[in-house]
């Protein structure tokens, strides 16, 4: 009797005015988070596939015979390669001819190199003379035996590293 006559009825709880964490909400939330986690996991997996692990490009190493009388300071560009090989009294060295700005192939000129795409200029040792290129042209790893030079376009050496040849 007394229970029925209370003046202040118990506040009824609804989904809009919930108790701290009903079991149903907990289940719902945890399944939502489980789904979000699974989607994220799947997304990472999906990005792994187009990010190639083995690059399909041809070998970066090549061998080339130097011309007999290569004057010092004169670049020798093997046909079909973007590499300039120089010979001077200190030895041999190779400078990459791929512009460090946006990847165009630079052209050798009497002062060094010039890029046709956005006008970067480089000195003969690869240092930036002017233009937007952020880095000097890298020197490439080479080995020489006899008149034959092996250039590895995939690995760079510190500028100024010359090889006896």
């Amino acid at each position, binding site marked *: 009797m007394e229970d029925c006559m209370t003046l202040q009825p118990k506040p009824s709880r609804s989904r809009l005015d919930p108790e701290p964490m009903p079991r149903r909400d907990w289940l719902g939330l945890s399944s939502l988070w489980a789904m979000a986690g699974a989607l994220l996991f799947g997304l990472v997996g999906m*990005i792994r596939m187009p990010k*190639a692990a083995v690059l399909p490009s041809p070998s970066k190493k090549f061998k080339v015979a130097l011309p007999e009388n290569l004057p010092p300071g004169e670049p020798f560009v093997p046909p079909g390669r973007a590499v300039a090989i120089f010979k001077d009294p200190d030895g041999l060295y190779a400078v990459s001819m791929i512009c460090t700005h946006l*990847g165009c*192939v630079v052209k050798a000129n009497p002062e060094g190199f010039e890029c046709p*795409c956005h*006008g970067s200029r480089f000195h003969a040792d690869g240092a930036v*003379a002017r233009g937007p290129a952020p880095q000097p042209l890298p020197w490439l790893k080479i080995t020489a035996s006899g008149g034959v030079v092996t250039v590895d376009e995939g690995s760079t050496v510190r500028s100024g590293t010359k090889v006896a040849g």
Partner: protein
Amino acid sequence: MNQSTTPNHALRAFWQDLKLAPRRVYETAFRGGPPTTDRTRSTFVFGNVFLHLHSVRTHRWSLKWSTTLGLGIMSVSAFLITLITGVMLMFYYKPYPDVAYESIKDIHFVVPTGRFMRNIHRWAANVMVVAVILHMARAFYTAAYRRPREFNWLIGIGLLATTLALSFTGYLLPWDQLAYWAITIGANIAQSPREITDALGITEYFDPGGFQRLLLLGSDTVGAEALIRFYLLHVMILPLVIAALMAVHFWRIRKDGGLARPADADERLARCREQETYPVFTEAPNKTYHLAAVVRGKTPLVGRGPENTVPSMPHLFYAELGVLMLTFLVCVVLSLASDAPLKELANPNVPENPAKAPWYFLGLQEMVSFSAFMGGIGIPTIALLGLALIPYLDRETEGTGEWFGGPGGWPLVRFSMVVGLCAPLLVESFAIRFGWLREWFPGIPQLVITLVNPATILTAAYALFSLWAVRRFQSARAGALALFTCFLCGFVVLTVIGTYFRGPNWVFYWSPADWPKH
């Protein structure tokens, strides 16, 4: 039993039904009957899955030419044209280096109507880029991005970016010199965050640039992998993205109560055309208006009668059809007048000189020639962010739906045009005449050039000018007017310089006639 008293009765009925079949197919397909009354015109719209994206009745303000100039429909029309011609081109195109070039050559010279299809595809893509940019300008200058349309403005920016991405991915597919070097440059722009990470010396540990490039090319050089990826993006991924964005874009126009219009649009229309009122309440369509009861917010159909609306069929649809036909005409005429270019086969050893991107990216290329990261990624990101923020910073209501509405108005836009055109001309002529930091201080760190170059100075100048406009007119809308006008003018000036005044080695020339011969 009684019906078949004569053996021929069933056959006669069968013959009658056969004769009536075509008409019955028509009647069952278009159940509402011919759209001759307001009621059947309504059924015509909401009884059709393709048309019911439109509302049954359209406000007369939306139908005025000066409201939209038809630019949105023109963008969609151009997209539909590229879609159809693109599918036609896929019959012959083969995405493999060298073979791709041959197949484009076949399309151009051998395949019946191939050259015409390719021309239309290319011209419609160009028309789409122009129309999308102008459509954005229209939506901006009529302040159509305001509440409740803020989010649709963001979707629109997504559509702009996707349109440009579609065009750019299509640029590689012919595998000619132009394509190859544009993609080389594009992929290296994706790699250009290295400009920052290299300067900080952290590329070894954190290399988002290299990751982006690898994801784009699938290799470390532009080759077969890159071609198939760009092809996949161009014919599958990006069209799906743009279709989804378009669906949301259109649906929201409908949900936001049609096109934006001035608050007093009804009064203004009533002043000029009193006689044309439609008996909407006596012949009300039997479906749409009870939906209005569950629509919340400031949609125009709530709280006022649809006095100034006309049936979408025929008024809106015929106008849309007219714009579609006009777009088609423009594309066909341009295709007959000028062929899509095809240069020599791609040669990875000798860059095209000058190697120019498609025209709408030449402004970017101009900025890239100062700093790869800032011009290619930094400033475009800032510009897109600035555009995206506009509806969330301009919370005013004055002048919605009116050309150049808001504090300052047309005089401010005119002044902004002067500033927007002069600033890039000044900065560019200084840089062309006197060179830039590296010429004066050869040993200067790259980070300084990345941060201080003509492109960043121009961006800063525009930003400062817009802040001045906010202060001067005490209004965020005034700042937005200044900023957007500057953005458009800067885009035009840089694009024109990149297109007409840059020659071999990206050197400034007054005319291509002055270019060195070799």
